[in-house]
């Protein structure tokens, strides 16, 4: 296989890692007002993703860095072209990232409510905009002979792009509900399970329309297979949730997201950013790539270190494998104070 094809696949893998993992913590964040009835339950939800969300988010940093290194032209055109959506995503990721660490630092209802909003909207905005961005990448955008994006924000907000945004929104909500059901005990678990079924059914309809549309406009045989399995996994996941099999339900949405993203990349190949101005201006895996020497070096690094990363990330999930319930939440952090003075003083 060509090195450029290998790197195209590896970048697909990085995005799959990102959306399958950060997808559920986006979902948990967005579901905060719907699944949690009080502060303790909100804290249960925060704590289900507390130890792992940051590791999940690193997948997007590595995907961005790998695109920069392996396909500099793709990175340059995409990031300078999708400027405002990326800025909004950045703002979202910044405020939600701080919400985890800062929310519990003060026992003050208003302070907590602000950080809850940061988590909710900071998850919602990227959850939609990543879908808009990927739908537009696959669909193609106006790119000129200098590889520059010539559209603006409204070019990206076309019906196909917006539908893509709704699909990622629905998938991450469902995925987050499945994760909450899998990682909690008590009322919240039941609520999450019920909601996951309803969300899953709505998402399934949206996803089928979107994937069929993608398949008709740019699909290949392999992307069709991926899309069909993705849809089947979603239905199976919802059925598993209804049957109370939370582990399998989560596997269902996990596989759905993984294969839907894989299918999008298969539909994209061998382009990386098709041009709607003129097909000759499309960026492809070969025209956008770095030199083979860089790709070789990067391949060695990836081959050696990716298994190590996967191993310790998996291990951290295993360490925090237990379900969390309201009884696990300690009282509010009253905050540290001076050591008790000895009685004699």
């Amino acid at each position, binding site marked *: 296989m060509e090195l450029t094809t290998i790197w195209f696949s590896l970048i697909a893998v990085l995005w799959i890692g990102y959306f399958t993992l950060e997808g559920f913590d986006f979902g948990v964040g967005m579901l905060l007002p719907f699944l949690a009835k009080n502060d303790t339950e909100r804290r249960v939800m925060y704590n289900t993703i507390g130890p792992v969300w940051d590791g999940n988010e690193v997948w997007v940093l590595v995907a961005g860095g790998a695109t920069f290194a392996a396909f500099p032209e793709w990175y340059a055109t995409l990031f300078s072209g999708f400027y405002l959506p990326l800025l909004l995503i950045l703002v979202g990721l910044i405020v939600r*990232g701080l919400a985890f660490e800062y929310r519990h630092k003060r026992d003050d209802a208003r302070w907590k409510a602000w950080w809850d909003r940061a988590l909710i909207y900071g998850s919602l905005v990227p959850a939609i905009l990543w879908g808009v961005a990927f739908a537009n990448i696959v669909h193609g955008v106006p790119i000129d002979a200098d590889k520059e*994006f010539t559209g603006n924000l409204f070019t990206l907000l076309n019906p196909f792009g917006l539908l893509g945004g709704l699909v990622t929104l629905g998938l991450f909500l469902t995925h987050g509900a499945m994760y909450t059901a899998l990682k909690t005990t008590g009322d919240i678990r039941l609520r999450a399970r019920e909601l996951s079924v309803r969300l899953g059914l709505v998402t399934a309809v949206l996803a089928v329309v979107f994937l069929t549309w993608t398949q008709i406009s740019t699909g290949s045989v392999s992307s069709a297979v991926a899309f069909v399995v993705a849809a089947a996994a979603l239905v199976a996941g919802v059925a598993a949730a209804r049957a109370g099999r939370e582990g399998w339900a989560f596997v269902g949405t996990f596989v759905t997201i993984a294969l839907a993203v894989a299918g999008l990349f298969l539909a994209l190949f061998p382009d990386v950013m098709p041009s709607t101005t003129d097909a000759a201006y499309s960026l492809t895996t070969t025209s956008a790539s770095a030199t083979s020497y860089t790709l070789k070096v990067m391949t060695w690094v990836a081959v050696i270190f990716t298994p190590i990363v996967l191993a310790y990330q998996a291990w951290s999930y295993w360490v925090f494998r237990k379900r969390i319930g309201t009884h696990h939440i300690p009282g509010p952090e009253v905050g540290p104070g001076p050591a008790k003075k000895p009685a004699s003083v």
Partner: protein
Amino acid sequence: MDVLDIARWQFGIITVYHFLFVPLTIGLTAVVAGFETAWLRNRNPDLLRLTKFFGKLMLINFAIGVVTGIVQEFQFGMNWSDYSRFVGDIFGAPLAVEGLLAFFLESTFLGLWIFGWDRLPRGLHAATMWLVHIGTLFSSWFILAANSWMQHPVGYRYNPGTGRAELTDFWAVMFNKVQLVTFPHVVAAAYMTAGAFVIGVGGYLYLRNRYAADRDLYRRAIRVGAVVTFVAGLAVAVTGDFQGKVMTEVQPMKMAAAEALYDTEDSCAPFSIFTVGTPDGKTEKFAVKVPCVLSFLATGSTGGRVEGINQLRDEYQQEYGTDPGTAYYYAGDYVPVIPVTYWSFRFMIGLGVFAAFGAALILYLTRRGRTPAARWLGWLAIGLPVVTVAASSFGWLFTEMGRQPWVVFGLMTTERGVSPGVSTFEAFTSVVVLTVLYAGLGVVELRLLSTYIKKGADPFEEPPEPTLRGRADEDAPLTVAY
């Protein structure tokens, strides 16, 4: 203002801001890991209290470093797309490797450390913080390798066919001679910053009567912080000296700009402590000069020859003045903004030296159990973290502004790197949104830090002793929870 100006301001603002937090994070992870390891060895309860106390402050700080770091990676493509196209083959690789080797390590093991008190055996728990620290060092290595390549491009060739620089030797980039002196300099400065932070926090609490019972605890923190600051300060000075020699060799204009030396001195070039000049910065009115010091800084010998700005401008114009064939070339003046390089160089050195001497003084005054209680000592202690953070910022301002007009020295000027397709509106929106957001977050961060500093260290509490199989009581509340 055009997109170029806005993009430059944005890079300056968000990068300096990001780096206010980074050195402290790098250094504090080591300090916290050190306290925890020391506690495991001698079981002194004070050490665990310090571990948790500084661990908390480190996390408040770490969070901002993490979220502002995402912008760093995205903005190369957003604002500097032509730069990214030109250098992606070389510059992208260290960034990708940084993500894979460093960011995963930091984020995963930080999560394990925060929530692992009742999940991981004690030794393993301490090890997770060391791994976080190693992650921060990996991160520094790769990002500094990328930056060093911009200061002194090696291991590449220019391909006229594609109009891009292409990587030919990855190891040359990783072990660039600029990198070999920059990495230790930056990391030592990070330890120095963290040491100063520990002195500042410890000093503040030490002098408050409310915490009289904990005097010994904070005195210990001050001593540890002062040793770290002083030793790291020496390392910063030595590595900075090496850096000066390498800089003189590969970027002579930057050295001339550091001194505002307009004309070549054949030997014994003086170093001015400060200068008052005419408003255009070209004529000096009054200066305090130390003879031969600049020659020594630049060449290692008091008799060394130091080239001046005017001569270097002629040399650069001869070398780069005719179009070398790259589309990214722009013939310019080749002289950075002299007042900025001149003063940032002095503030970097002056503040760094002040902090190292301050730490030494504190060590001396607290020697052998002495417990000084002078107010001015408290102010000195509290001032040191500010001084060291400022010194780091001035160092970066100097090295980045001193490279101008180049973005990649000798290959590409900064103005050629900016994104051609980005509108003024987009760039302006971005710089305003990020600056306002960062300012707000800065206020929140400082207030949180001060709240948690004022509360002092928690009383000692024996942590659980879990095994990997799980906790003794799985239904008990979590030891640490958000």
